[in-house]
């Protein structure tokens, strides 16, 4: 969050200033520098250790795999005669459920954040913000149980409505009617609710950072409140909102227990998001680890590595977008 706020250019100048002063810095300064640099290095070491561990175990697993690791649908690594496993279904399910979650959660979170920062009277905004933060503290297993016991039965109506009126889109077509809605769509909705508080909380803080002068300038030029938000607040907050969304997406991609409870897993790759089936990386690991033999455990590590790489790619992509946007946004002005 801090890196996305507009002070990053200012931060850089501060850094260079400390550099020039290093010659006569006091002991406290050196200690603090060592502590913060140490933390940074420690993080890199941990990341490298995780990546190394996953790479090592994955290498063992993939060398055992008799089928293509990227295109196979089945997950049967402990089969002695023909160990075959692949991540196609898992990657698809993870990305689709994450995508659905983002489509629902991001606009909603921006709306809530704007309401808290710019629309709601102070008396309401404070407790409301607190309430949103509270949502982030609910453990995922509780979301999972709520999803399985409340959301799944109550989405049956919406599902059959979507099937009836939007079934022609293929995506919303249901092939097996009457089945409980334990599908990627429900999973996406549940994940959206789970990541909503993170995106909201971060976006709200970013919107609050918008310089008063920008907003007043917009209003002085005759902008309505909505136009002021559109021309001053949103461009300023865009990198922050993207960062917030990436934090949320990270949680959605890695969510385990809630998905394991709600989604009916199978090795079927289907764009019918209302049909039960599919799976995600984290869910698959949670479900299969207990009974997995040694090859099975290695195979699960390999799938973990893929999730690791996907998360890195997504975050890297987001960084690129933010870096590019910064030049055009009013943030540096």
């Amino acid at each position, binding site marked *: 969050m801090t890196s996305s706020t507009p002070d990053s250019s200012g931060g850089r100048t501060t850094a260079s200033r400390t550099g020039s002063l290093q010659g006569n810095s006091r002991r406290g300064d050196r200690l603090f520098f060592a502590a913060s640099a140490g933390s940074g290095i420690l993080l890199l070491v941990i990341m490298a250790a995780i990546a190394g561990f996953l790479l090592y175990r994955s290498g063992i697993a993939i060398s055992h795999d008799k089928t293509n690791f990227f295109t196979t649908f089945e997950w049967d690594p402990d*089969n002695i005669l023909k160990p075959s496993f692949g991540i196609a279904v898992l990657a698809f399910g993870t990305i689709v459920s994450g995508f659905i979650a983002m489509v629902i959660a991001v606009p909603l979170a921006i709306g809530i954040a704007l309401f808290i920062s710019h629309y709601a009277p102070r008396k309401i905004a404070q407790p409301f913000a607190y309430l949103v933060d509270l949502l982030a503290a609910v453990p995922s297993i509780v979301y999972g149980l709520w999803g399985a016991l409340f959301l799944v039965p109550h989405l049956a109506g919406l599902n059959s409505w979507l099937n009836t009126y939007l079934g022609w889109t293929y995506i919303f077509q249901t092939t*097996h009617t*009457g089945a409980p809605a334990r599908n990627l769509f429900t999973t996406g909705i549940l994940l959206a609710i789970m990541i909503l508080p993170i995106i909201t909380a971060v976006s709200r803080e970013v919107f609050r950072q918008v310089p008063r002068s920008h907003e007043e300038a917009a209003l002085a030029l005759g902008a309505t409140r909505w136009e002021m938000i559109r021309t001053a607040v949103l461009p300023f907050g865009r990198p922050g909102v993207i960062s917030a969304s990436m934090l949320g997406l990270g949680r959605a991609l890695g969510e385990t227990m809630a998905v394991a409870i709600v989604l009916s*897993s*199978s090795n079927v790759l289907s764009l019918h998001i209302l049909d039960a089936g599919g799976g995600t990386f984290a869910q698959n690991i949670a*479900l299969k680890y*207990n*009974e*997995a033999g040694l090859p099975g455990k290695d195979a699960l590590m390999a799938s973990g590595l893929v999730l690791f790489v996907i998360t890195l790619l997504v975050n890297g992509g987001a960084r690129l977008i933010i870096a590019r946007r910064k030049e055009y946004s009013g943030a540096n002005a």
Partner: protein
Amino acid sequence: MKLQRNGRTKALAIGAVALVSSLSLAACGSDNNTTATGGSSSGAAASPAAITCAAKQAPLLGAGSTAQGDAIDVWKNVFGAACSGSTLSYNPVGSGAGVQQFNQGKVAFAGSDSALKPADVTASKAVCAGGGQGVDIPMVGGLVSVIYNVQGVNNLVLDGPTIAKIFDSQITKWNDPAIAALNPGVTLPADNIQAFHRSDDSGTTQNLTAYLAKTSGGAWSYPSSKTWAGKGGQSANGSAGVASQVKTVPNSIGYAELAYAQSNNLKSASINTGASKPVEATAANAATTIGTAQFVGTGNDLALSLDYATKTEGAYPIVLVTYEIACDKGNAPATLDTLKSFLTYTISDAGQKAIGDKGYVPLPSSVTDKVKALVPTLA
């Protein structure tokens, strides 16, 4: 299988009694190590399960099958209470991993859903000293019941081919002619069948699919496997997950161990085996099937071959027997006595009855007699 907590508290109560008696004994004798024999005989007298503690008690390590986990939990409490020097820890890591740990000499016995493979037997010779080898000792019986939830249908009858087709989405409606033919006079709804299977790998799935592969006449085209292979349907995590889905979703069918059918008040399908009338899923009927099993092990090995296609009257065909695996000769000397005393208890009528109350199937005497003869000869 979820075990009811009252069993545990009962065992704890027995434990408290045994503990008190052993404490008072320790207070009488000044040396509490050498009086172990005296203590154990009194301990056995105090315990209703009639457990004979080992003369030289030692902590016992086991690992393996998750399906046995709850049975071992029950035994552990009673046994640990009666023989306070013999703490038992059982790690339910899965059958394959359990056998692996046994063959590395890390545990005194392994629990396994399936009999030892020839390669495992060869590997066990490295651990079992003096020319011994790992043997299969049948210990825990169980049955898989086909649970269903269909409004107005109380005595559903199915057979191997029909179950296979239902779980493979070849039969998709409840009023399918194949089901109707097995249930004359029953009004079946014209709704879609909602079939539920396990999403995690499981010995329960393996047993059901072993039955289907044998009896479905080719309708189940997959090999028996822990991983679900059938087409369509939905999956749920664990037997508890399957049972709760079947309970809440109308027109559903699934499979789970008997204990889950009982604790969730779910109806279990009777199986048309070719006997004069369909067989209900009860522990007694499952024991009948296990009684017809052939011993196929060589030497001291008591591996069983279950006859899934049995047509014996009153024999419920979808059953499982899990084994304890130990050396016939050359067990670790430190734990041998404790191991024998534990296995003697578990195969005793009291031991089998204790797990029968938890939804397992007490083994019939044709099996227990052989095991009772084998256990004292372990060395």
